[in-house]
């Protein structure tokens, strides 16, 4: 029997990623500055990298990191130049409360506070996404940069600037006031879904860091659903992501070419994720009182697709009415075009074409690059060849015609060595 000697660096990284949200959250509570909190937490990681190779990996790596980080924070508060008696008292109290050796847990709300902080609307969306992956997911700047296909410097600067903005604008480490909750929450959900879509749009030949974003977003979403269980849109976003992720393996062919929804092998849809999606959707329905929000409608559309045993069994009438409701609250070009396709599927090509043509009159849409494609889909009008490219992502202009049937219907090549790197999010392994 061979005892597996842990790679210390990777072990530190794993322990950090599992605990980072809680550690940074509780340190932010202590020092009231998220930038400083993260620096102090990183000090603990550096200490682990120095000490564990010598002392061995501690019995409880996560607790070790937490304890060490908290000690740094207590030390910092003590050392602080503007040491006032009050602060010393605070440091003392903190030590009393947690004891440096205890396993101090962040209050659950602290992690939620951290989410709201890193997704604060004072920050540009891309900064929110990078900061959230950094603070909540524990990803390094290098990992984030690979995921977003930019240089590490860009991400480092983006995160630094975001922290500075939060400090300058004195954004408090607090949950939003009730009257601002909806707006703040939608800012959070936007970031989570953006992260998910970044990963979802990655093709199989890409760095695994990109599909890995789907997992990061799913984790964030599931975490949010526990932290804010009474928010229907949170559950709906989780449902939407679980169901979309369930199709990850089926949506690319053996050579990495995209396979549109209606041509996907439904046997390769991940039933576990679909069921999780359905459960999340039920929660969204149970908690939702008023009119359904945009994520609830999108998730409901995803549910329709997931429920259909075959492409032909899709309930297009229901999907068309869901898109109609969605187009009213979220009249983006994609949604309106998808609605046209759904209407065409439900009520015949002419109905879809009429709707698509009416979009031509719209200044925003008339030169929109997808419109001709949608009109084309409606023109062709045959049930066998038309479907929106994805349930909510809409028809995509770059979607090439799938290769002729024989080249991929015969061999479901999952490559000779699929298992070594079976994607982080259950995506098919790299085949190209």
């Amino acid at each position, binding site marked *: 029997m061979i005892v*597996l000697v*842990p*790679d210390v660096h*990777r*072990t530190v*990284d*794993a*322990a950090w*990623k*599992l605990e980072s949200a809680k550690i940074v959250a509780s340190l932010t509570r202590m020092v009231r500055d998220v930038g400083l909190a993260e620096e102090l937490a990183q000090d603990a990681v550096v200490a682990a990298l120095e000490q564990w190779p010598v002392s061995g990996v501690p*019995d*409880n*790596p*996560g607790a070790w990191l937490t304890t060490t980080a908290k000690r740094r924070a207590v030390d910092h508060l003590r050392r602080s130049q503007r040491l006032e008696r009050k602060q010393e008292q605070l440091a003392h109290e903190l030590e009393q409360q947690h004891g440096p050796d205890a396993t101090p847990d962040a209050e*659950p709300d602290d992690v939620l506070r951290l989410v709201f902080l890193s997704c604060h609307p004072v920050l540009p969306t891309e900064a929110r996404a990078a900061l959230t992956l950094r603070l909540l997911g524990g990803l390094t700047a290098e990992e984030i940069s690979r995921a977003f296909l930019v240089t590490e410097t860009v991400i480092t600067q983006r995160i630094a600037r975001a922290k500075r903005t939060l400090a300058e604008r004195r954004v408090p480490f607090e949950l939003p006031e009730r009257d601002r909750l909806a707006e703040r929450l939608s800012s959070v959900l936007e970031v989570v879904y953006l992260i998910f879509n970044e990963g979802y749009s990655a093709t199989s030949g890409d760095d695994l860091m990109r599909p*890995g974003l789907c*997992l990061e977003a*799913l*984790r*964030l*979403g*599931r*975490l949010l659903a*526990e*932290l804010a269980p009474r928010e229907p849109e949170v559950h709906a976003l989780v449902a939407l992501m679980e169901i979309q992720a369930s199709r990850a*393996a089926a949506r690319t062919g053996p050579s990495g070419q995209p396979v549109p929804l209606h041509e996907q092998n439904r*046997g*390769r*849809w*991940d*039933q*576990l994720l679909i069921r*999780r999606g359905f459960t999340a959707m039920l929660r969204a329905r149970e908690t939702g009182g008023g009119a359904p929000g945009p994520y609830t409608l999108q998730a409901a559309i995803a549910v329709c697709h997931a429920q259909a045993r075959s492409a032909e069994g899709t309930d297009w009438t229901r999907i068309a009415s869901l898109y109609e409701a969605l187009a009213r609250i979220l009249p983006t070009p994609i949604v309106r075009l998808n609605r046209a396709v759904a209407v065409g599927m439900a009520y015949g090509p002419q109905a879809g074409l009429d709707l698509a043509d009416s979009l031509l009159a719209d200044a925003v849409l008339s030169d929109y690059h997808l419109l001709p494609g949608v009109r084309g889909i409606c023109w062709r009008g045959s049930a066998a060849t038309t479907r929106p490219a994805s349930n909510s992502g809409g028809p995509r202009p770059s979607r090439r015609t799938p290769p002729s049937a024989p080249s991929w219907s015969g061999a479901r090549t999952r490559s000779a060595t*699929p*298992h070594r790197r*079976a*994607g*982080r999010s*259950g995506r098919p392994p790299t085949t190209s």
Partner: protein
Amino acid sequence: MRYLMTTKPTDTAPDEKLYAEMGRFIEELTAAGVLLATGGLEPGGILVTSSGDEITVTDGPFTEAKEAVAGFALIEVRSQEEAIELARRFRRIVGDGQSVVQQVFGP
């Protein structure tokens, strides 16, 4: 990536402390979006053997009960190291015994 952790049965009966700690652990992993499914398995079970054209169904208990699986957890993590770290935490709670951690492929 997904890992399945299976645990072999032990002789020691779980006490209240273990129940409470395990409950917290499961709750934490669920909240973190890591734990996808978990459950305990009946001892013994039914053995289905195929040999040539013949399929035999045998009812337990079996002598190799110790080699059987008593419980499982399906987790979704970023790396093998994360899976190992979670398995370590699990073992610390349940005490002496063995678990097997295997990566899950597919669907």
